[in-house]
């Protein structure tokens, strides 16, 4: 494909080649339309690249016969697709009501302190951590759940944070 590249960037390397392309092609028979494969395709992009760039959206558009604008519309609807690069560890803390009443705000503060992130959504200078608050992770009985990349850690308290962060460094 002809990827849109910017002057300072390295040329865009397509995601859907080789094995990935085969994986995508295997999805097509599961749905009556190609468009239905957009969420799985975007997941593949994010697994490989860590985030979904405009160039990647253009590639998804091309492989699914959609427009880049349509793909961007879908990407920006869903909160789990990162539209900017994030740290090596994306730390998502639930602070919705059930976790809030169990001390989730203290967990957020402790995580920011120990990861040296200056604020929510700002990646630490060493590139390791991005801490964000998220709405309900669906593990309310195990407050506070913290999702680090693909893993959900249950019952995190502010006191457990130093050990948790040290284990990742």
């Amino acid at each position, binding site marked *: 494909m002809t990827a849109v590249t910017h002057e300072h960037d390295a040329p865009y390397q397509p995601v859907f080649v080789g094995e990935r392309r085969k994986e995508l092609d295997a999805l097509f028979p599961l749905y009556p339309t190609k468009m*239905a494969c957009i969420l799985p395709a975007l*997941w593949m992009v994010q697994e490989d690249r860590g985030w979904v760039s405009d160039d990647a959206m253009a590639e998804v558009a091309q492989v699914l016969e959609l427009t880049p604008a349509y793909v961007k519309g*879908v990407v920006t609807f869903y909160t*789990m*697709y990162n539209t900017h690069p994030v740290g090596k560890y994306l730390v998502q803390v639930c*602070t919705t*009501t059930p976790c809030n*009443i169990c001390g989730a705000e203290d967990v957020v503060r402790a995580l920011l302190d120990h990861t040296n992130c200056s604020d929510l959504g700002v990646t630490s200078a060493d590139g390791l951590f991005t801490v964000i608050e998220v709405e309900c992770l669906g593990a*309310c009985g195990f407050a506070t759940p913290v999702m680090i990349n693909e893993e959900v850690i249950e019952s995190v308290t502010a006191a457990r944070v130093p050990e948790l962060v040290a284990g990742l460094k």
Partner: protein
Amino acid sequence: MGYPFPSHAGETPVLSKYFGDKDAISLAGFRKRGGYDGLQKALSMTPAEIVDVVKASGLRGRGGAGFPTGIKWSFMKPGDGKPHYLCCNADESEPGTFKDREIMRWTPHALVEGCAIGAYAIGAETAYIYIRGEFTEPLVRMRDAVREAYDAGILGKNAMGTGKRIDIVIHKGAGAYICGEETAMMNSIEGRRGNPRIKPPFPAVSGVFAQPTTINNVETLAAVPHIIVRGAEWYKGLCLSSPKSTGSKLFSVCGNIAKPGNYEVTLGFSFKDFLYDLCGGPLPGRTFKAVIPGGISVPIQTMEEAEATKMDYEGFVEQGSMLGSGGVIVFDDQQNMVKQIARAARFFAHESCAQCTQCREGTAWTTKIMERIRDGEGTHEDLDTLFSIADNMTGKTICVLSDSCAVPVVSGINKFRSEFEALIKKPTFHPVTAAVA
């Protein structure tokens, strides 16, 4: 078994029987425990016979609305020449609810079996299981289970050797509470933004990919194999209060309580015994203040209301709330209700898909005003404004997210008004009209 705590003697473990039992996760382990007996039996019945059994059992939707499952299935007209679809709603994201998560983590094959029976009953060859993106572990378990079921010939073009085709596709969501709304979920499966659709047309007429579709919750489908194996009469017999509410139901319990977790009780169980006995009561030295019994979208109950409640669809309504999804959020005397209702409003403002003006603007303004009151900057007029906004947000939008935001605010002010007033220190601003000479 039970997870994270062993089952209490007061529980009725049907769906939760193998929670915490690692051996029940695999196909071999599940079959040893009677798994897929229900599907085997169902495939020897006609779809209409299955629908009749489910109707007779009294099973109602466990996702929140409580619609009778058998009746929902009967809306799918056989022989219309169109492909039918089953969508399993595993987008569990109602704050306070985490029961479907445990079903998928511990007994993924129970859901595969339920989906297969449901699909066959409504004449569908394909079932989509829509699992929220945050459920990484349940996703892995479900994908493994579906793969095992295909390899064993349980799914596929010759399901259990009967010549019937049943395919199950796992579809991973990407972070959107609203995709738990059935029409938003169908849009999301189709590869669109998860905006809810106007009904009618109802899904049974024009659902996913514009074909007849049934959407069922995880817990609903997981209950079906038990009904097929043990019969409608057995299920109907699980009833302690209203005859309109039958069967066992999982309740997720969280917040300020001694033993948070999932508990499965027969519908009609005493909510007082549930909170103080099964869940261990308040934390040491604390007392309960309020309960949201069915996920954050249902009205807040005072303890007086909660303690008088029979835990079924009718019982919660009689005591000023709803059963909803069964997500019980408990608040104790250390919590400020204004702060927590403001946080709930923020949740809805974040999750509004922003299609409807009443919801997009209403959730945002409700949050701003609630947070202003929380921070000591509110006026008495703000309470009236909140009621007025709530009124304009209720019953006026495509889906009920807007209504859901108004619910905790209205019930919170009505039931805990003194906490709001304690935070309002500013005098009410009365504009002075200029005198006309």
